[in-house]
């Protein structure tokens, strides 16, 4: 059982900013493993344990520093990491990023590809569907429970309306919800051992990517960065006894009743 987990190195939450010059996310500061991806790594490790053998391979597209996040995943217990890092890939949008990841995944031919629920920096929650389409593999997203047996996966998918139970034959692509598990912390032994695990950094040509990458290969763009629209003044009520009546008056004034 070979499980590939796609992970992302994201800026620390407090350092999130857009670079006004490039209009891209500023990735020059400290970064960390996207928290939602830890759930996907955890699930991969559990699947491998349940199967009794196999391999968990981490795959990422990002700057060279992203190796730090991959090492965290290795410290959790993943076996191997592949980082696709190429200056030409900076600024890749969904179509460009999915093309790179699909190429890296094709080389690995995993039985199962896992994604975390979303990217903490871009709030993107769509990449898996694009990758699944490029790989021409069945897809299940928003999986809150996952079982693998007899060459297929069975997932409980959370939706707006409740949940669905979906089955798909392997090889498949699954995006897990952060409700699926509680990710383990890397042990000291895991951290010490992580550096010695196989880590491969590839550029676009090593991967055999011939199409355009980065902004060249992207189909979306950012025109301007603006302040959010002002919300107006906050009206305050501090008298508990009179509050219900005053709220009703406020709602009536806003024509909400």
């Amino acid at each position, binding site marked *: 059982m070979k499980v590939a987990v796609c992970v992302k190195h994201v800026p620390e939450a407090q350092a999130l900013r857009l670079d006004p010059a490039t209009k891209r996310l500023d990735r020059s500061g400290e970064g960390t493993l996207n928290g939602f991806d830890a759930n996907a790594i955890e699930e991969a490790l559990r699947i491998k344990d349940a199967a009794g053998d196999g391999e968990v391979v981490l795959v990422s597209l990002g700057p060279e520093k992203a190796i730090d996040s991959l090492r965290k995943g290795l410290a959790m217990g993943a076996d191997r990491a592949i980082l696709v890092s190429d200056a030409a890939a900076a600024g890749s949008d969904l179509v460009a990023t999915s*093309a790179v990841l699909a190429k890296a995944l094709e080389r690995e031919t995993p039985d199962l590809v896992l994604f975390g629920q979303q990217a903490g920096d871009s709030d993107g929650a769509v990449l898996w569907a694009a990758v699944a389409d490029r790989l021409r593999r069945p897809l299940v997203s928003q999986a809150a429970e996952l079982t693998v047996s007899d060459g297929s996966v069975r997932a409980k998918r959370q939706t707006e309306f409740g949940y669905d139970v979906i089955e798909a034959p392997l090889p498949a692509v699954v995006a897990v919800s952060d409700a699926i598990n509680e990710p383990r912390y890397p042990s000291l032994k895991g951290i010490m051992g992580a550096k010695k695990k196989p880590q491969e950094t590839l550029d676009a040509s090593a991967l055999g990517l011939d199409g355009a990458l980065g902004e060249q290969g992207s*189909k979306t763009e950012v025109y301007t960065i603006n302040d959010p629209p002002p919300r107006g003044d906050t009206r305050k009520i501090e008298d508990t006894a009179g509050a219900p009546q005053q709220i009703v008056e*406020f709602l009536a004034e806003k024509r909400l009743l």
Partner: protein
Amino acid sequence: MSTLVFLEHHEGAFVKNALGVLAKAASLGDDAHSVVVGSGVRDLAATGGKFGASTVLVADDQQLAAPLPQPRVDVLAKLVRDRGYDTVLFGQSVLAADVAAGLAARLDAGLNWDLVDLVNEDGRLVGKRPALQDSVHVDVGWKGEPRLALFRSGVFDPAETGREAQIEDVEVELEDFSTGATMVEQAHAESEGPSIEDADIIVAGGRGLGAPENFKLCEELAQALGGAVAATRAVVDAGWYPYSAQVGQTGKAVSPKLYVAVGISGAIQHKVGMQSSQTIVAINKDPNAPIFEFADLAVVGDLHEIVPELTQLVKERRG
């Protein structure tokens, strides 16, 4: 501009967010088409004209019965290729996001998500998108066509135009891998009243409620106001309320006309899911709760006293 709107439906009715997107599309150009995908959906599709579509395309096939994304990608990709739509719009949902992203890969097309508006500026389409936990608003666009976009729930109102749409059946050809995933079971939560995606008014509860049974305070107020009940991640994680009601970074982003936050501190993870609501009323006993920084009406006080009386007053007022 030739626009196609994906009209998602659930249990025999269109999803409100999708109808809102259709109204927006109709307001931007002369000819908004929509597509309804499913099994036994022809009667439903025939009502699509009422909401602004000039043409409703119907992909009706037994294989499309379950709300799974990949067969829908096949249907939409064929429509865009055969009919040359330059813009395809979706109301954001678990299903629609997967369809839109699969279609983006299939057609090598740009997808912008989480948009709160779409405008025509100097002859080009510009999407408005809150980003970085809504701390900035960016203007985004597309390099080439088709342009794909997902819109945040509740940002547009459906508009009943009473139009008679032309209904056309379309051929369904599915890829082998698209039918690999199958629906084994659909266990949908029974809920009264509108879902949070469909509601104009949302009453949301947080940890400040103190106990799961106190959610009934929110439910009663929501019922009196004709709204839906939402919850924060903290209380969903604690098992007080189902995930389908979760608003915030890992739940739904909503933009109702009125959002009443009950016992919610307004942590950033929650704020990103609701701060684009038109009017925000927050009730919290902590005068320093962050939610008061962006609420329109900040009520500092004991929710256990305020909410039941408020519910009573609203009931009286609405008769």
